[in-house]
C-alpha cells in the first residue's frame, strides 16, 4: 500500500482489501464531498457483509449492521478510532506530512485512524457510501481474523495510550475508556452467565434425579406452574434489560437497513446473533488476550 501511495499522483488515496466488493459505482463521488472540510483527513464508508450465508456470516451481518449506527454515533462526536480497510478514503497530504501506513502494525488501518486523531484531524463517516466485504464463513478463519484485529487493537491502544485523556476530546475522555471497559465487562459477564447457567442446569438435573423424574408420570403443567414460571422471569429486571436490548438492537437494524437500502431478511441473522455473538466475542477476546500476553506470533491467515 505504501508503494502505491508513493506512486500515486492524485490528492486522494483509497484503500481496498482483496475481499471487498463495491456495488455502486458512484460511491467515491459521494464520499469526496466530505473533504470540503479541510480538517477531514479520512472518510470511513459504511461497511456491510456481502450476501451472508451460513450461521457465522449471518452473525457477522448483524455485527456489521450494528457498526453502521455506532460509526455514525462516533462520527458525530469525532471519536472514530477504527477505519475500515474496505474503501476508506484519505487525503494524500496526510501521508506526506505524517508518514505512510505502519508496516509493523497488525492492523495498520486502526493505527492510521489513531494517528489521524492524534494529530487533531477528523475522520468522518459517510452513511451513503456502502462498501461490502466477504466475511469468513468458517470458524478458524474467522477466529484468525479476529485474533489479528484484537491483538492489533491492543497494540495500537498501548502505543497511543496517552490519548486516553480529555485533551483528545470525547474520544480520549469517554469513547476509548468506555470501549475497553465494555470489552472487559462483556467477557466477564459471558463467563459469569455461562457458569451460573451450567450450575443451575446441574442443580435442576440433581433435583430431577432426587424425585426419580419420569416425564410421563411427573410432568404436571397447570395454571399455577405457568404463572409461577412467568412471575419468576418477569419479576427480575434482567428480563426487561433483555427485552430493551432486543428493541434497541431492532432499532439499530432498522436504521442500518434503511441507510444501506438492504432489503434482505435478517430475522434469522438476529436470532443467531443474540444466542451466539457474546460467546464468540468472549472467545475471540480471550484467545487474543492470551496471544498478546505471551507475545505469540499472530499470523494473517
Amino acid at each position, binding site marked *: 500500500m505504501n508503494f502505491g501511495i508513493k506512486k500515486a499522483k492524485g490528492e486522494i488515496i483509497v484503500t481496498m482489501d482483496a475481499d471487498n466488493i463495491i456495488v455502486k459505482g458512484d460511491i467515491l463521488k459521494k464520499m469526496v464531498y466530505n473533504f470540503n472540510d479541510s480538517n477531514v483527513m479520512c472518510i470511513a464508508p459504511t461497511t456491510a457483509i456481502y450476501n451472508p450465508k451460513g450461521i457465522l456470516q449471518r452473525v457477522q451481518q448483524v455485527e456489521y449492521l450494528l457498526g453502521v449506527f455506532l460509526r455514525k454515533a462516533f462520527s*458525530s*462526536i*469525532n471519536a472514530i478510532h477504527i477505519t475500515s480497510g474496505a474503501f476508506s478514503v484519505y487525503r494524500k497530504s496526510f501521508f506526506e506530512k505524517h508518514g505512510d501506513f505502519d508496516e509493523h502494525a497488525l492492523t495498520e488501518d486502526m493505527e492510521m485512524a489513531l494517528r489521524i486523531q492524534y*494529530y*487533531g*484531524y477528523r475522520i468522518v463517516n459517510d452513511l451513503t457510501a456502502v462498501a461490502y466485504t466477504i466475511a469468513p464463513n468458517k470458524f478458524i478463519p474467522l477466529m484468525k481474523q479476529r485474533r489479528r484485529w484484537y491483538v492489533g487493537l491492543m497494540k495500537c491502544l498501548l502505543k497511543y495510550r496517552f490519548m486516553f485523556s*480529555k*485533551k*483528545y*476530546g*470525547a474520544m480520549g*475522555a*469517554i469513547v476509548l475508556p468506555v470501549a475497553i471497559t465494555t470489552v472487559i465487562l462483556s467477557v466477564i459477564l459471558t463467563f459469569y452467565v455461562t457458569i451460573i447457567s451450567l450450575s443451575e442446569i446441574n*442443580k435442576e438435573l*440433581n*433435583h430431577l*434425579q*432426587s*424425585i*426419580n423424574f419420569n416425564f410421563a*408420570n*411427573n410432568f*404436571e403443567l397447570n395454571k*399455577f406452574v405457568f404463572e*409461577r414460571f412467568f*412471575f*419468576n422471569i*418477569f*419479576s*427480575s*429486571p*434482567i*428480563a*426487561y*434489560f433483555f427485552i*430493551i436490548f432486543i428493541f*434497541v438492537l431492532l432499532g439499530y437494524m432498522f436504521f442500518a437497513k434503511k441507510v444501506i437500502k438492504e432489503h434482505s431478511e435478517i430475522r434469522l441473522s438476529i436470532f443467531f446473533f443474540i444466542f451466539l455473538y457474546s460467546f464468540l466475542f468472549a472467545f475471540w477476546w480471550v484467545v487474543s488476550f492470551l496471544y498478546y500476553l505471551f507475545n505469540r506470533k499472530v499470523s494473517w491467515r
Partner: protein
Amino acid sequence: MEEKRPLYGKRIILAFIIATILFALGFLLSYIVTYSKYQSVSISQGTIGYSLLDLELQERLITSSCNVLGLFSLSTELDEMGSTMGILEKRFGKTDIRVLSQKEIYSMLELQHFLLIKSYSEKCNKSINSILFFYSNEENFADAGEKIGYILDSLKSQKKQVMIYSFDYNLKINLIELLKRNYNITEPNIVIINEKIKLNNINNIKDIQKYIK
C-alpha cells in the same frame, strides 16, 4: 494542531440520560410486577384466613357426615402461596419487612390448617399424612432446603392427600419456636412425617415415600 478539542458534553449527557432511563425502566417494570404479586398474596392471605375460619366452624359442627368442604383444596392454595412467597423473598430480599410480615401470617395460616386437619382426622377417624418441613434460607442450608422443597413438591403432585407445611426455621415468631420445641428441631432441613418420624439428610423422594401411608 493544538486547538482544544470539543467534548460534545450535551450529546454525551443526552446519551447517558437515555441509557439511565432504559435501565430505570427495567428496574421499574420488574418492581411493578413484583409489587403487584405481593399485593395479590396479601389479598389471598385474607381470603385463606376467612376460608380457614369457615372450615374451623364446619369442623366444629361435624356430627356424623364428616364432609368438610374445601379442606383439601385449601392445602393446595397454601402450597402455591408458599411457592410464590419464595420468589418474593428472592426479589425483595429475605430481610425485607414486607416479606417477613407475610411469612409470619403465612406460617400461622399453615399451622391453623395443620391443626384443623389433625382434629378432623381424629374426629372422623381418617388417616391423613402430614409433613412438617423446617427449611432455612441461610447460605449453608439453602441448597439442601431447596432440594427437599423440590422433593416435597413432587410428592404433593403425586399424592394430593399429603398435607405439606413448610416453616422458615429462622423466622423469629413464638409459634415457630414452639413448634421447634415440640418436635425437638435443633437444625434446619428437618422433615417430620405424621408427627412421629423425624428425618434429616433427605436425598431422594424414596426417603420420604416409604413412610407415607
